């Protein structure tokens, strides 16, 4: 078992004909992911990276029974791509695209909530269940199958942590990059809840960043609801203070958002916080 993606995942790639889309489709297929098709309006009927291309998500779903989609389209059309996937009835949508305007995401997220569509991202590396399937751009060769769940707001920092775990012989159940944008589809809380319920995850590693208060809420959730140990890392201890959006930004954050506050919140709720990425495996090992 694992969370979100497994051997039953039937994936389509939106933006499959683009440079990134095609490249990563090949990588996902090579990894063994069941990629059943791609979508690009106007290119229906063609084949790219060994998969059939459809004009619309609806056609792709009807023809292939796809139950997950990954999006590689540019930021201007990404909100539409997410909505199209949701309207085609796809329950899991992973958006890799970065740079989507925040007000677009406010509307998209409000719409998805009504439909019950699960969105991962945007501006994220996607997710991988090592040895089974990868949806997105996390490099497969740094992962190994195991019992550690990884959830992160970051991209390359996530790879760093996954590689550090793998190097110490600590495999992962699923690694999920939830993305760094102010409005995203899935929060730390959502993923922590899934890991808590996943029988193959015994330990969770959470990688946070400055800004917002998702980490603080995660810390409360961990102490109130989780039985599995969680090890955290927060990037941005040395980030300059005052990188905030005028008065209103500081007000809405309610005094939270700095690394020091997030680390304090984790420690207050009994979550061990690593000082640097390569220390994470040691803290994980201490629980084993």
């Amino acid at each position: 078992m694992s969370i979100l993606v497994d051997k039953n995942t039937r994936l389509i790639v939106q933006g499959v004909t683009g440079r990134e889309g095609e490249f990563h489709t090949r990588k996902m297929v090579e990894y063994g992911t069941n990629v059943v098709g791609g979508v690009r309006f106007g290119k229906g009927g063609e084949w790219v990276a060994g998969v059939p291309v459809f004009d619309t998500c609806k056609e792709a779903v009807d023809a292939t029974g796809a139950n997950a989609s990954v999006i590689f389209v540019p930021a201007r059309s990404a909100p539409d791509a997410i909505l199209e996937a949701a309207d085609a009835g796809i329950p899991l949508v992973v958006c890799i695209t970065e740079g989507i305007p925040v007000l677009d995401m406010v509307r998209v997220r409000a719409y998805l909530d009504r439909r019950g569509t699960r969105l991962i991202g945007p501006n994220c590396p996607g997710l991988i269940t090592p040895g089974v399937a990868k949806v997105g751009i996390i490099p497969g060769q740094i992962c190994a199958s195991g019992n550690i769940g990884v959830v992160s707001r970051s991209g390359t920092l996530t790879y760093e942590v996954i590689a550090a775990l793998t190097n110490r012989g600590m495999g992962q159940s699923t690694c999920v990059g939830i993305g760094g944008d102010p409005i995203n589809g899935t929060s730390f809380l959502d993923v922590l809840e899934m890991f808590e319920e996943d029988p193959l995850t015994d330990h969770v590693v959470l990688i946070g960043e400055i800004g917002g208060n998702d980490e603080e809420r995660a810390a409360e959730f961990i102490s109130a609801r989780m039985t599995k140990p969680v090890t955290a890392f927060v990037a941005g201890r040395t980030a300059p203070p005052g990188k905030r959006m005028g008065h209103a930004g500081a007000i809405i954050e309610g005094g939270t958002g700095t690394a020091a506050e997030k680390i304090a919140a984790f420690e207050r709720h009994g979550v061990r916080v690593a000082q640097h990425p390569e220390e994470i495996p040691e803290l994980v090992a201490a629980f084993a």
Partner: protein
Amino acid sequence: MKLQEYQSKSLFAQHGIPIPRGEMATTPEDARRIARELGRRVVIKAQVLVGGRGKAGGIRLARDPDEAERIAAEILSMEIKGLPVRKVLVDEAADIAKEIYLGVVIDRAQRRAVVMASSAGGMDIEEVARDTPEKIVRMAIDPFLGLRDYQAQQVAAGIGLDRDLVRDFVTIARGLYQCFLDFDGSLAEINPLVVTGGKKLVALDGKIVLDANALFRHPDLVAMRDVSEEAPSEAEARQRGLSYIQLDGEIGCMVNGAGLAMATMDLIKLFGGSPANFLDIGGGAQSDKVAAALRIILADPNVKAVLFNIFGGIARCDEVARGIVAALRDVNPAVPMVARLVGTNEEEGRRILAEARMETAVTLVEGIKKAVTLARGEDAVIDLPPVAATPLPARRAKAPPASSRKKAAGQRPAKKAAARNLAKTGKRSTAKGASKKRPKPRKS
């Protein structure tokens, strides 16, 4: 992207928000003319994109055109927090009975726009929020319904506004929310929104911050960008698609990914150094981008060593290494550099860099320690940390044993000294001189 006060207020006016009569001036003579046309007491306000203008003396009253000219001349020769004042706004002076705060911002936790208001408006609104959060009224807005009149009325009631003023307040609040939507704001705020002695509401000061991701929809607003307000390094970084923030440390860093860049800065501090900057070069590492990033980093005279930390993931490290070498040929840095590359073909990448007489590292901690040591002017012969010495199983066969790596590092000083000598001669020193001529970028 932040808009200046005079720009923000003109956008407010387009959305039916009352603003004081006034005009922007770039010379004292202009200020005199505007004051004469307004025909009454005026306030001269420095137009710079930093907070604390008032406290720095950048906002002053003038009784007549003569005084307006004199004060405008003084303010136009000021620097506020390192920024030269190039424009002033000359507004008719308001008769202030009360100051209110009104803003619209995205609330990440509620995932929607929120209208916020407080009866305690004015300069110290952040302290109000921190010390007496109950004085801030918030109203979350459904993106499909927008701000409704009843909601704006509730906000007005929440801050104890006079009933006579509520109708005008609703118009202003809806106008501000519409501004926020139409211009893709990440912030739109009026502070203060004043109640005048004559019982009128006027937006005395305002600020709009635009969502950088949405600028493609607003070429007219992009044209309003005050390029003169940007340090050359920042402008170059922005044009190259690099994310750069200057700090006051000694180790320049070039990293792919914002999270990893922050973690790299944190580690530099943890191991006794201090980061000179945050720099995310984004995906890939093409040589022109690396060269631009390197120029920006080296424009900071405090930089004593540079650390490249590239987690290739899917990018091929040999390509990244060639990009770095090409950039070095282009830029000719005179400070020591350490590169830590991880990903596909990483051994080949390290070999290419070693040939270019660059220090290389396998793990993050090793790279950081080398950079810290080099920034102190010492040679980077260090013990590898025990955790770090284990490469990925698949690559173990190719990686040299830790002992031989130490030995190689020990042999390097002679080569490095030669590189430094080379750096002091001919073409290289010219390049260095050119890079030093750049003005020091300001902190943002």
